[in-house]
């Protein structure tokens, strides 16, 4: 076993073969022989003047119920307090960037879905933007509006999948199920339009695959009619409760400087005072014609992130209504060559995804396949932030704090 942090990456180990910081039976600070301590895991010496308990290392994940996928957060605990922490990722690495080099430009959408598996439309759109930029492809208006509409539906669905489990991690079970109900409605809309519930394969360079169906539109409109009531109900059942507020206010604070230097985009940045939303500041598609506002907060704690995202959801509902009402007529796909060849060069496509700025930086060497695709994962940057703000919190807060960053490990590992 060469290195500690690789041990768990093989799930076939049995108890006897297991070496490292297992959670069963290794309680002291003494390190097993031959296993280096992760260098990021800073050992905090006990203050001899204070009474303190023995520190121990605790593995949160990769199979822990609250790490939302396959994050392995190794924390050093003094009783309930976290002294230092280190995130280990890589359990979901599939080599998406490498696989993209193997597929034609128009066939990359399935891989992009699997990068950010909760907000696939945005990943696809980012790549489509990059390809259209490089190939100078004119996209019909309707395609842009459909992308935006499906994107907002997906954003709502993804945010429900964040807010509900955030409540679940703090122990509230009912709100999760109520939010899943709404998410289900939105997923049905997505499924009947795109054909997939999570893996859409919908946005292509040059447009979108399918037009919206009348019954999907009717279903979406029906949901939008009750959406405000539903959001109020979610507010009342989870966020209005003082018990929940006590758990999230003032916890996991990301300062403005930290957010700036550590590359926080999206809701994490906005909750820390970075007033930046790509939909407003670098408008793409129909967003320059839409009326919406961008909420920001300055506290940077979990509550601020919840506020920012809750407001984003309300705005999403508003945007969806505007998109449905103002949908232009026309084709949903540009005339594309059977085999797309892009001129040699680089391009960057960006989009305000569910979790932050999703970018796709592509290199083309003039062939039918990409030379290199770089997917900019916002969550990787947020993970570093979460890791930094974890020490000093209590164990229970750490879980909620981690959950509030809305990790999606398909994106971090790719």
């Amino acid at each position: 076993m060469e290195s500690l942090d690789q041990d768990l990456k093989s799930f076939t180990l049995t108890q006897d073969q297991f070496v490292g910081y297992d959670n069963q039976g290794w309680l002291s600070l003494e390190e097993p022989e031959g296993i280096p301590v992760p260098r990021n895991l800073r050992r905090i010496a006990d203050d001899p003047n204070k009474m303190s308990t023995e520190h121990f290392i605790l593995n949160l994940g990769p199979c822990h119920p609250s790490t939302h996928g396959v994050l392995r957060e190794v924390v050093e605990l003094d009783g309930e307090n976290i002294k230092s922490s280190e995130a280990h990722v890589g359990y979901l690495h599939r080599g998406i960037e490498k696989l993209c080099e193997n597929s034609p430009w128009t066939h990359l959408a399935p891989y992009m879905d699997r990068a950010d598996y909760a907000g696939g439309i945005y990943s696809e759109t980012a790549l489509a933007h990059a390809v259209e930029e490089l190939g100078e492809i004119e996209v019909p208006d309707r395609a842009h509006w459909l992308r935006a509409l499906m994107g907002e539906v997906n954003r709502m669905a993804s945010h429900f999948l964040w807010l509900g489990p955030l409540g679940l991690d703090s122990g509230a079970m009912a709100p999760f199920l109520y939010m899943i109900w709404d998410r289900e409605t939105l997923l049905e809309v997505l499924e009947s339009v795109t054909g997939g519930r999570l893996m859409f394969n919908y946005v292509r360079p040059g447009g979108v695959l399918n037009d919206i169906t009348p019954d999907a539109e009717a279903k979406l409109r029906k949901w939008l009619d009750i959406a405000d009531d539903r959001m109020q109900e979610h507010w009342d059942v989870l966020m209005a409760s003082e018990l929940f507020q006590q758990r999230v206010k003032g916890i996991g604070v990301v300062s403005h400087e930290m957010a700036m230097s550590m590359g926080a985009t999206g809701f994490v940045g906005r909750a820390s005072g970075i007033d930046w939303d790509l939909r407003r500041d670098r408008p793409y598609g129909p967003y320059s014609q839409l009326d919406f506002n961008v909420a920001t907060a300055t506290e940077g704690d979990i509550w601020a992130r919840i506020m920012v995202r809750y407001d984003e959801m309300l705005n999403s509902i508003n945007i969806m209504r505007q998109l449905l009402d103002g949908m232009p007529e026309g084709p949903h796909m540009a005339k594309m060559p059977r085999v797309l060849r892009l001129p040699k060069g680089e391009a960057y496509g960006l989009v305000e995804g569910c979790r932050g700025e999703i970018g796709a930086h592509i290199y083309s060497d003039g062939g039918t396949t990409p030379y290199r695709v770089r997917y900019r994962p916002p969550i990787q940057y947020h993970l570093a932030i979460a890791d930094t703000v974890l020490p000093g919190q209590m164990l229970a807060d750490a879980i909620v704090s981690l959950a509030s960053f809305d990790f999606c490990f398909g994106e971090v590992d790719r």
Partner: protein
Amino acid sequence: MSKKWFPTGIFKALGIVWKNLWRKNIVIDYPWEKYPMPERARWSVQLKYDEEGAIKCTACGICEKTCPICAIQIDVTTDPETRDKHINHWEYERGGCMMCGLCVESCPFDAIYQDTNIELAHESRDLIRIDLATDVDAAKAKRAAAPKPAAKPDAPKPEAGEEKPATKPATEEGGKADESLA
């Protein structure tokens, strides 16, 4: 914001839960009652049949080359004289398929589709890898009517008796397929 002396929020939450306690449930009683699948839902790949009950597949192999994860494998024997194709096996690995639908989009003859049956679990691995068509003649493509020939006539074809088609590194093969299409 002034600190509230009395926690009204928790009673609000209790009220919502009380309301939901009497709401109709939202679940589907799965084995007895099924979720109506939308038309566009993409699940396992199936072959289409024409009015006479013969398969529409012409064994052109475009889906095979398109598939990003090589879940489709068509074992074809070509008559050297008439260029008629005989499909020995039309193998489809459902376990590896990621239901992206690129094969269906790329099929120039509209010969495959994705059905909406979600019950794809099987007891054995062998049942997941299925033969959609065994030992049938491929439909004679109206090659003139088709947009472009699927494969050049002089392109190397797997010969009869060969278990595996000749393979090359995937990049080259993908590139070639596209060139022939263009």
